């Protein structure tokens, strides 16, 4: 790893062919591929190659990015057919073959590599993405305490960076765009699995039915695509069990339970 001194800027001695699926809503009837020959060095990510194209060859190329270190979740795209973070994918691993870059699958294309994220944001909002205390306390009464084991129960689900790679990997989301999907379910499980939270019933009510967990057929590719090992497939599928149990338990459950955390 540390053979190359980090202070030294590497020479871009090699060239890679980058094939980008372009779509300009004003002038293009449908997306078309455009190829660029880009000089690169072994330390460059696909994102850096895209930035190089935008800087030196074609300023009209549009793509989202921010942190360059796989934590903001902005630069998700299909690289050689797989959903990947462009900042986390290195050209040296794909060269010398041409690299194909497309916008995330299963999402409407706004422009070039930029997709529509509005529906995804709405889904995240729909699952009450905040802690709803079981018994509200005043500030004077102190913190809500949690043991390390209680934290371990949900912590991995809080690692989600909303990059939507799991949605691009999910064929059931491709077939039913209203499916709540893996990412939002990981966030739901992050709160439902939290020992301080009391909003489980409220969230369970929001994911019953075909557009809830039941579009999932446990394909499992979402978890393979996740760059943060969140395992969204686990979040969706353990909630299928809970949703099924809830379906039968609703007959014997007191009516007012679960509506306790009304906002």
């Amino acid at each position, binding site marked *: 790893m540390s053979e190359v001194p980090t202070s030294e800027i590497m020479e871009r001695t090699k060239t890679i062919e980058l094939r980008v699926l372009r779509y300009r809503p004003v002038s293009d009837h449908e*997306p078309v591929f455009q190829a660029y020959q880009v000089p690169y060095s072994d330390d460059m990510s696909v994102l850096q190659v895209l930035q190089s194209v935008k800087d030196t060859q074609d300023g009209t190329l549009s793509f989202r990015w921010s942190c360059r270190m796989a934590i903001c979740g902005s630069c998700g795209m299909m690289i050689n057919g797989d959903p990947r973070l462009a900042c986390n994918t290195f050209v040296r691993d794909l060269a010398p073959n041409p690299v194909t870059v497309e916008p995330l699958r299963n999402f409407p294309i706004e422009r070039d590599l930029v997709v529509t994220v509005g529906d995804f944001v709405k889904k995240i909002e729909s699952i009450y993405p905040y802690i709803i205390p079981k018994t509200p306390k005043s500030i004077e009464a102190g913190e809500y305490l949690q043991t390390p084991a209680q934290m371990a129960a949900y912590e991995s689900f809080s690692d989600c960076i909303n990059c939507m790679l799991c949605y691009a990997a999910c064929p059931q989301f491709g077939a039913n765009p209203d499916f709540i999907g893996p990412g939002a379910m990981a966030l739901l499980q992050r709160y439902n699995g939290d020992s301080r939270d009391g909003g489980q019933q409220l969230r369970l009510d929001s994911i019953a039915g075909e557009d809830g967990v039941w579009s999932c057929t446990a394909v499992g590719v979402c978890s393979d695509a996740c760059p943060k090992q969140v395992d969204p497939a686990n979040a969706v599928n353990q909630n299928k069990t809970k949703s099924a149990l809830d379906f039968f338990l609703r007959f014997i459950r007191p009516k007012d339970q679960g509506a306790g955390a009304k906002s």
Partner: protein
Amino acid sequence: MSERRPYVRAQPRDWWARKPYLGYTLRELTGVGVVVYGGILLAGLISLARGPEAFEGFRSFLTSPLSLLIHLLLLAVMIWHVVTWFQTMPKTMPKLIANGRHVPQQKLTLAGVGIAAVCSAALIAAFLIAGALP
């Protein structure tokens, strides 16, 4: 310049036959193999109920080369079904925590496949012993 015209790409009809999903498709198809084998067992049960003659017919079918071929194929399908079933199982259950840490999913899969293998071996051994008894 600010005109919005989002372009929706259709999902290919054959997505299930493509690379990352083919494993899933094959896994689900093994369920058909399980049904077929269940059908064979049921046919045996029905022949048994119909009397000794019918059951003898069923037994002679079992010893035919075609039946052997079918059973070898079904055995392979069933093994794949078991392995992939236990690969999927950890994804469908809450995270197991032992000593404050997650139990790795691979361990759960290994344990499941191991238990299934031991049970199958024990069953075969029990039949062999019972068959050898006078």
